[in-house]
Each structure stands twice: as structure tokens, then as C-alpha cells.
């Protein structure tokens, strides 16, 4: 991390990080020539260690520095991007994500968790950087790699762990599982197993926010939706369909690409004609931004602007976060295709280590503060496991529950019985 600078590759000129001059859709959107080739040459499909190390140098290059940050730099007393409280909040959230996922791996190998489990180690900066800026009413839609999105959004660790154990105290009473985390209270809309499936659903949630404001006249409804998905999804038709409709109808959504370079064993370079995903935003009329997803502060700066844009009604943004998953695709993945040098390179850029370094170097927190947080989170995760262990499995009668919100239709009438059982009902005179 370079002190207080924020290196973000911006793919369209009018998008500026200065909040006083919002981007205008009428200006032509230009794809700039990147300072260096993203991800090295596409000719080299076999990723050798040298081409991967180029990444490190590339991300160190400052392509564009925000005006906000420049202003902040000039005021020497307040040159930091975060306050102490914010820093500790970010640290705690990332540690929670990491400790939780590590515990999931342990529990899986002990047989307490089963099926498909996809862990988020290494990508915590994206979840924390974005979700910690949201209000409770904003919504998050994710994929099957959704444990940490759930935790960042506020779903209690106990509820997530119980869900993973398949217990009735889980956030979905054990009926959803690892890949289907839903929480009405925290506006976490899942949890989808098919890649690309969550994107239209997120677009619909953003549509609702706009509809509520314009048609239902709830003037203060400025809820924003975040859609998280990976690099593999960016080749799927639904992604493009939704970029089109979100820009067409100017919906308050941010499309967050967690580009971890791999879709199970398929390298992003082998699957994509143009691997620079952020460039696909301007093709549909929205800004496309590339940011270092291993750096929570950079992600947070970009997120602030993108979420702000959506909240002000200026429309969608596509943000590509370059990140990496330290573990395999899922706990069943032997992870043999990835180059160990690539893994080592990204392990050295661990977002938690980087934030820790930043906090300590800028005297925002001491070692002792951070150790206290580590200990606290360990206890939270241990407690979650204990709670999940002791929780009951769903009763047999729960099998047939919740198929329908209202199995017979029309709901419950004023007399407390199902309306359709009212004999008057079928005569057409019943008022519903």
C-alpha cells in the first residue's frame, strides 16, 4: 500500500472520484490505453512465475489518483483514508471472515459440514470494502461463495454456522445450506448456485428501489443494491443483459466483479476473449473501474463513489476487483492447476496483513488492540461452532414446510381461516 494513495484504473474519463462533479452520461466514454498489459500477455497461457510477478509491479504503478485523495494529501494533518474506529471495524470484519472460513474448513474435514462449501479466504477486502459502507436496507446479492458476504452484511456468525451444519437455528432453518444464504432482516438476497443467476435478481432489487421512489412515491427510498460475482460469470449472457437494462433504466446498482482469475480450474485468460472486464461497462453506457481487490482501502474509496453514484440516482457502475482466493474453488477441489508461484505472490499481498501494517504504521492502532480483536473473533467463531453443535436438527415435519407462502392462495381471512375454504368464496361474492 502506498500510504494514502489510491490506485484505481479508471476506464472512462468523465468518472471522477471527486464527489462534487458527478459523472455525466452524455460525455463520450473512452477506454484509455492501459499503462501496462493487464495480467501479462495473453499469449502465455501457461502462467510462468515471471509474468505473474509483473502484476505486482503493475499494481504498484499509480495510474490515476483521485482528486479527493490529492486534496487530502495537501492537508498534512488529515492525510489518512480512515479513522481509528473505521480501521478497527474493517480489521474486525476481515478477521471475522478469515477465521470463520478457516473454521469451516476444519469442520468440513471433521464431517460436520457437507456438500459444496466454497471459501472466501483472500478476498475479504472486497466484501469488507463494499459492504461496510451499506445501510441495513441496502441489499446484497451474491453467489455460492457467500458466507463472508453474509457476515459482513450483519448476519450473526451463529446463524451462518448453524445453517452450514444444517441445523434448524440456521439463518434459513437448515433448508438453504452453504450456497443459499438468505436473510430478510439484513437484506441479503442470496446465495445462488448458478453463476449469473444473482445478477438479474440484484437488478430487480435495484428496480424495486427506483420503483418505490418514483411510482410508490416513497421519496426517501434510495436503497442501493450490490451484486457480487466472479470472472467466469462475466462471460455469461445474463451479465450482459443486466448491464444493458441497468444502464437503460438507470438503476441504483453496483456490479462488483471479484476477479480471482480462476473459475474452478479454468483460467480467466483461457476463457475470455478480452480479459479486461472493466472495459465492458462503457460498452453499455456505465463507468467501468478496475481496482486492486487485495487492498481494502482502495476498494473502499472506489466503493464510496460507486455507491454514492447509485444513491444519487446517477445509475449503475461496473467495478472489477483484482483479487485471489487462497484456497481451491471449493473444499472438494484439489487445486492442482494453479501455479504455486502465483499463489505465493498473492499470499504476500494478503489484505489482512496489509491493513494491519497500515494501521500500525499510521499509529491508528497498536499491536495490542489488534491482538484483542483477534482474540475476540476467535471467541465469536468458537461460540458459533458450539451453538451450531448444540442446535437441534430440523424436525421431520419441517420437510414440507415453506414450499409456499400461502399454500391455498388468498391468504388468511379475517376469521382466521383460509379464505378459499369459505363456501361463499367460490360464488364470486367474497371480497378479498
Amino acid at each position, binding site marked *: 500500500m502506498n500510504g494514502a494513495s489510491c490506485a484505481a484504473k479508471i476506464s472512462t474519463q468523465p468518472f471522477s472520484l471527486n464527489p462534487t462533479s458527478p459523472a455525466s452520461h452524455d460525455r463520450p466514454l473512452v477506454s484509455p490505453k492501459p499503462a501496462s498489459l493487464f495480467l501479462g500477455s495473453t499469449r502465455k497461457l501457461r502462467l510462468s512465475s515471471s509474468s505473474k510477478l509483473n502484476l505486482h509491479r503493475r499494481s504498484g504503478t499509480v495510474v490515476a489518483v483521485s482528486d479527493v485523495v490529492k486534496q487530502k494529501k495537501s492537508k498534512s494533518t488529515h492525510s489518512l483514508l480512515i479513522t481509528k474506529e473505521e480501521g478497527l471495524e474493517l480489521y474486525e470484519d476481515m478477521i471475522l471472515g478469515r477465521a470463520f472460513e478457516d473454521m469451516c474448513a476444519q469442520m468440513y474435514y471433521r464431517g460436520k459440514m457437507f456438500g459444496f462449501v466454497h471459501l472466501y479466504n483472500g478476498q475479504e477486502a472486497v466484501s469488507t470494502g463494499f459492504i461496510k459502507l451499506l445501510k441495513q436496507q441496502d441489499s446484497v446479492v451474491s453467489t455460492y461463495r457467500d458466507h463472508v458476504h453474509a457476515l459482513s452484511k450483519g448476519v450473526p456468525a451463529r446463524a451462518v454456522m448453524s445453517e452450514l451444519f444444517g441445523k434448524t437455528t440456521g439463518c434459513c432453518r437448515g433448508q438453504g445450506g452453504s450456497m443459499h444464504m438468505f436473510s430478510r432482516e439484513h437484506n441479503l438476497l442470496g446465495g*445462488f448456485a448458478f453463476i449469473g443467476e444473482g445478477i*438479474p435478481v440484484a437488478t430487480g432489487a435495484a428496480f424495486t428501489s427506483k420503483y418505490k421512489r418514483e411510482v410508490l412515491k416513497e421519496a426517501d427510498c434510495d436503497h442501493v443494491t450490490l451484486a457480487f460475482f466472479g470472472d467466469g460469470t462475466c462471460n455469461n449472457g445474463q451479465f450482459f443483459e443486466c448491464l444493458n*437494462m441497468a444502464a*437503460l433504466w438507470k438503476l441504483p446498482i453496483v456490479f462488483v466483479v471479484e476477479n480471482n482469475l480462476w473459475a474452478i480450474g479454468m483460467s480467466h485468460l483461457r476463457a475470455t476473449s478480452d480479459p479486461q472486464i472493466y472495459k465492458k461497462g462503457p460498452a453499455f453506457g456505465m463507468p467501468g473501474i478496475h481496482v486492486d481487490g487485495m487492498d481494502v482501502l482502495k476498494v473502499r474509496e472506489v466503493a464510496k463513489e460507486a455507491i454514492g453514484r447509485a444513491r444519487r440516482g446517477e445509475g449503475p457502475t461496473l467495478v472489477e476487483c483484482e483479487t485471489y482466493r487462497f484456497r481451491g474453488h471449493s473444499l472438494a477441489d484439489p487445486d492442482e492447476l494453479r501455479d504455486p508461484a502465483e499463489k505465493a505472490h498473492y499470499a504476500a499481498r494478503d489484505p489482512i496483513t496489509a491493513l494491519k501494517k497500515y494501521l500500525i504504521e499510521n499509529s491508528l492502532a497498536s499491536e495490542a488492540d489488534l491482538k484483542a480483536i483477534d482474540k475476540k473473533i476467535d471467541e465469536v467463531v468458537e461460540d458459533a461452532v458450539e451453538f451450531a453443535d448444540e442446535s437441534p436438527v430440523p424436525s421431520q415435519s419441517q420437510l414440507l414446510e415453506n414450499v409456499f*407462502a400461502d399454500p391455498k392462495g388468498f391468504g388468511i381471512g379475517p376469521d382466521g381461516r383460509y379464505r378459499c375454504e369459505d363456501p361463499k368464496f367460490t360464488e364470486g361474492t367474497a371480497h378479498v
Partner: protein
Amino acid sequence: MLAIARQRMLGQSFKKILPAVSVLRSYSSAAKQITVREALNSALDEEMSADPKVFLMGEEVGEYQGAYKITKGLLEKYGPERVLDTPITEAGFTGIGVGAAYYGLKPVVEFMTFNFSMQAIDHIINSAAKSNYMSAGQISVPIVFRGPNGAAAGVGAQHSQCYAAWYASCPGLKVLSPYNSEDARGLLKAAIRDPDPVVFLENELLYGESFPVSDEVLDSSFCLPIGKAKIEREGKDATITAFSKMVGYALKAAEMLEKDGICAEVINLRSIRPLDRATINASVRKTNRLITVEEGFPQHGVGAEICASVVEESFSYLDAPVERIAGADVPMPYAANLERMAVPQVEDIVRAAKRACYRSVPLAATA
């Protein structure tokens, strides 16, 4: 001899020159005639004006007034924010509808035909039907997917499939298929008010047909219950179950059978899922013979499910094997004569009913 027989038949048929649907005896006076199209349009209109959360989306629903003119006039009345013309992106806009329904809005998503719903079937099944279960009741999806289903006239294999069986096999969905205007109005209103995902299978060839409706049907609070079949014609010798266009054919077949002394009971299923097994079984226990009629492909179809249900619950009441009339087991051909052979006709139903009653007609390949 023949002349006398013909005269007798003519005499009888004069008495029977009434519109086929006059067998509806449940309403005292058939006051007004409306087409199915008008019925659907008025149902949408009333539901949209009653609840501002209801909105329409689909291809050509707005400025074109609807591909089959079902949504005529609604854009002018409710504006472009509530009647959305979408790009040709079934997967995308169906998913958007589901996402909006997660938040309590009530989208009515139109598929130009249900064949196009195959591009969006992931969202119908995975994000709409299964969500209430996966989220343990936290997120219900009050969405309606509607559009024409089944064969039209000469539109070829890719525009003619019937999707009743596919959708009806999925838990979490309610599948409705109206026949006449009363069904169309009542069931569509019920579907829009229902808090669960509903697949509403209309029929293009019925849109222009008029049926008599009573004043109760025209009342804006009229609704029909989901999951209840209707006995269109009472009988005692054989039960014929059908839905959508096949109800009309079944009623005509019942009239022809009447002349041969077979009094057939015609059940209009109305609701494919949940299937009204109680009504069907009660009818079979009365008549002891069952003929199921559907337009779709025979294997794993609606008739197969009805047959299994009757065998499970009323086996000892059956006096003959269940007759299953379905579309031909081929993609729909284009040539008019082949198409006629690929879809059940009234004669097929009559033959099947006679087989069930006398077994005098050999089991030839049915359409």
C-alpha cells in the same frame, strides 16, 4: 331408413343448437358475452388499479399494446413506469421480475409464448419457485408468469410446445390454465393476488373466443380459488378431464357421446398444480371410467399424473383402463394436415370414451 334417422338426429340437434358453453348451469343468466382477451385485459386493469405494486413487464406489452393485444390500453392508463417494454432478454428481465418480487412488488411477466420461457426457466424454477423454501419462509415471491401456451395454428415446432407438465412437476410453483372468460378473469386475479409464483398458461386460439359471463364475474372483486377444478358438465358414464382449449373439445365430444347414450362428465382442471385430485377421484368413483385429454407430449404429461393419482386412490372403482389422449409424440409439424394429426381432435376423445365404455374400437394409435 337413413332419412328417418337423419331427421331424428336433426330434430335432436335442433334442440342442441345452443352455444356449447350453455352447459354452464351454475350462473342463473348468461347476461353478457366477453372474449377471453377482454377478460384478461380487464383483470389486469382492475388489479393494477387496485394495487400500485402490480406492474407489467414483457416484450411489446406497452406501445405495441401487447403481442396478442392482451395488454391493450394499459400503457396509456398506467404509464411507462408500470407497463415496461423490455428488450429481448428473457433471462434478464425474468430475473429482474423475481428480484423485484423479493421486495414485495408484484410483477406480471409476460412471455410472448411460453416457448420463450425456456430461456428464463432458470429464474422461474431456481430463483422464484425455490426461494421461499431455501430461505425458510423469509422471502416469498409474489410473481405471475403469463403468456400463451401450447399449439397455435401453423407456427411450427419451436412455437407450439405445451409446458403444463414441465412446470407442474416443480414444487413451489402454482400452475393455472384457464379455459373460458370466467376462468381467465378469476384465475388471473387470483394469481396476481397470490403471494407465491404462479405460471399462468393461456391459449392463443382461445383469446378471440367469446363466452357468456354473469355479473358476479364482472365484479372487480371476483376471484376463483386456486387448486379447485370445475365440473363443466355432469355425467355418469365416463369422466373426461381436460384443461385449456381441450375443455372445449371435450364438451363437444360429450355432446356427440350423448347421442350414443354415453353421458360423460367433463372436468375443467383449471389448476394443474395443485391438482384437484379430490374432484377427479370423486368423479371417477361415480363414473368408473376415466379419459384424460391434453395437448402436450404424452410422456410424463398431465394425463400420466392424473392416471397415477386415480390408480393410487380409486383403483377398485375403475371398470376400464384409463384412456390417455395427448398430442403426438413428435415435435409439431408445420403442414396443416400433419398438424391436425398431431393435436387431439374431438373424434379422438369420442373414440377413447367409447373404448373406455365398450372396448369395441381397437386400440389404434391415437393422436
